[in-house]
């Protein structure tokens, strides 16, 4: 049995559909802008923010709009089916509006608004949440627990998260430059991303793709610092390739995590070097969307699906010269080429790493 993936959606400062977002970044347009006096010390900071000030319930709005857009691209009433599950990916949800239980209320709202048969599953696994949510969806589909999975990820920029990253000295004072020699840290972003996954190809209105396999692995090294050997990333990619039955030679493109912190990008370069994959064209999309945390895996996979549709892979915004100890084939120009198979990776706090492979049928 195969798992199919499609009906992708992205909501970001660059647009409210995957297509709009893809067309913007194809022109190398970024959603990152300077925001005045937003930092803890009233510093001006760069962010990829949708509104200057978010309206009330903005997190739920993003979730629900994203889900609505996916539903429009799916066979009618699939969302209400008994063999359908909704999987949500988020790190902090609406933390400042509901501190004691930020994730349960949106779940109740979704059940009511979309007449869901099953309670959505909430994956909260730091920055790999989005990739992991799709992996979990695939596992549920492959084991016949559910036939269809709507997977939606969202996170918003809040003082809470911004001040936290500032306290770690992880925020760049200019738009982030993943893998570059002059990178200075991350730029935060907000938005939503989502896909429909199913074992039934007839649920998709537009062309769909194959979700081949996905796995995760922990670094078992440090809760807030990536492994110096890239062990977890090395292991998850090795495992995903093996279970997928795909040779690394057949990976046309890598959508990396690339947060633009020194330790993360270095860790990724070491892992890809150990994997023998440094020649494969690679990018980080953080220069366009910022780091959208729990939404990032879904936004970036939705862009990968657009790349499969359009046979264009996108330049890694903010990158000029390699700044990691191992060489990587970071894209300095958009590449128009036949793209068949893509590897997506993510890494996060808690030592977590995840990867997945999607390809054309």
């Amino acid at each position, binding site marked *: 049995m195969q798992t199919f993936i499609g009906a992708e959606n992205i909501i970001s400062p660059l647009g409210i559909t995957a297509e709009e977002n893809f067309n913007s970044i194809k022109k190398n347009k970024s959603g990152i802008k300077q925001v005045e006096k937003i930092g*803890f010390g009233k510093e001006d900071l760069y962010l990829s923010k949708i509104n200057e000030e978010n309206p009330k319930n903005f997190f739920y709005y993003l979730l629900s709009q994203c889900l609505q857009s996916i539903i429009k691209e799916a066979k009618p009433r699939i969302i209400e089916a008994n063999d359908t599950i909704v999987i949500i990916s988020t*790190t*902090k*949800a609406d*933390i400042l509006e509901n*501190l*004691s*239980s*930020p*994730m*349960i209320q949106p*779940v109740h709202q979704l059940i009511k608004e979309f007449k869901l048969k099953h*309670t959505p*599953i*909430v*994956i*909260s*696994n*730091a920055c790999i949440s989005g990739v*992991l949510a799709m992996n*979990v969806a695939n*596992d*549920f589909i*492959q*084991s016949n*627990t559910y036939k269809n999975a709507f997977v939606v990820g969202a996170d918003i920029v809040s003082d*809470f998260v911004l*001040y*936290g*990253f*500032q*306290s*770690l000295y992880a925020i760049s004072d200019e738009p982030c430059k993943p893998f570059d020699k002059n990178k200075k840290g991350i730029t935060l972003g907000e938005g939503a991303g989502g896909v429909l996954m199913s074992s039934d190809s007839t649920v998709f209105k537009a062309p769909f793709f194959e979700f081949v396999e996905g*796995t*995760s*692995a*922990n*670094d*078992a*090294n*440090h*809760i*807030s610092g990536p492994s110096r050997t890239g*062990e*977890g990333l090395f*292991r998850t990619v090795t*495992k995903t390739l093996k*279970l997928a039955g795909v040779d690394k030679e057949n990976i046309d493109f890598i959508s990396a995590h690339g947060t633009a912190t020194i330790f993360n990008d270095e860790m990724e370069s070491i892992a890809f070097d150990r994997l023998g994959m440094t020649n494969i064209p690679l990018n980080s999309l953080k220069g366009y969307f910022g780091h959208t945390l729990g939404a990032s895996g879904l936004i970036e996979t939705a862009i990968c699906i657009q790349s499969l549709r359009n046979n264009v892979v996108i330049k890694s915004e903010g990158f000029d010269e390699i700044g990691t100890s191992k060489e990587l084939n970071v894209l300095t120009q958009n590449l128009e080429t036949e793209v068949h198979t893509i590897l997506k990776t993510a890494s*996060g*706090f*808690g*030592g*977590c790493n995840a990867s997945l492979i999607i390809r054309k049928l």
Partner: protein
Amino acid sequence: MTNYITSYCHILSDECWVNGKKIALQDSDDDITKQLYNYLEMDYPKFFKMDRLSKTAFLGAELIKNNNLALLNYKDDEVGLLFSNPISSAETDLNFLKSYQNGGMPSPALFVYTLPNILLGEIAIRNKWYGESVFTVSENFDAAYFLSYCNMLLNKCQEAVLCGWIKNNETFLFLVEKEDVNQLNLQLSLEQLNKIYLKKIK
């Protein structure tokens, strides 16, 4: 496919049970996490940096391991971790928020614990486990999720899965393996899981 619950434990506000048997803790006013740390005669300085959520999950994992030493014979990527709770990292979130309100500075030491999956990292680090790990947030103990995802992982790439529902005063952990190594005679099923969970949770 038949899998087995080979150990389980409940950590409540002032008592702890392993495989349904109460652990004899010394009389103390200390927090249950401190009492269990002493009971386990641990020497692990990193423990004292953890937040309460991580401490509780970490101790549960140690208790289960003590009861299942064969767990250490699996390869380092054959043990999966599935953990869940209803409130994410709410307790530490509040403490982090307080750190920067009223004129203070945001605390980086608290911020790193404002993600619930950090506890998976703590358990992985302690045991050098590189397997699959997933943290979910759900309102109630979702036996159906644990049952189906455990079976999936054991079928896909894991030999054992350590599961945990980490909630203040009603933490419940259980280990699932392919063989009934401890001969508890508990086949993994929805009924069995709910029954064991409810044993000590009122």
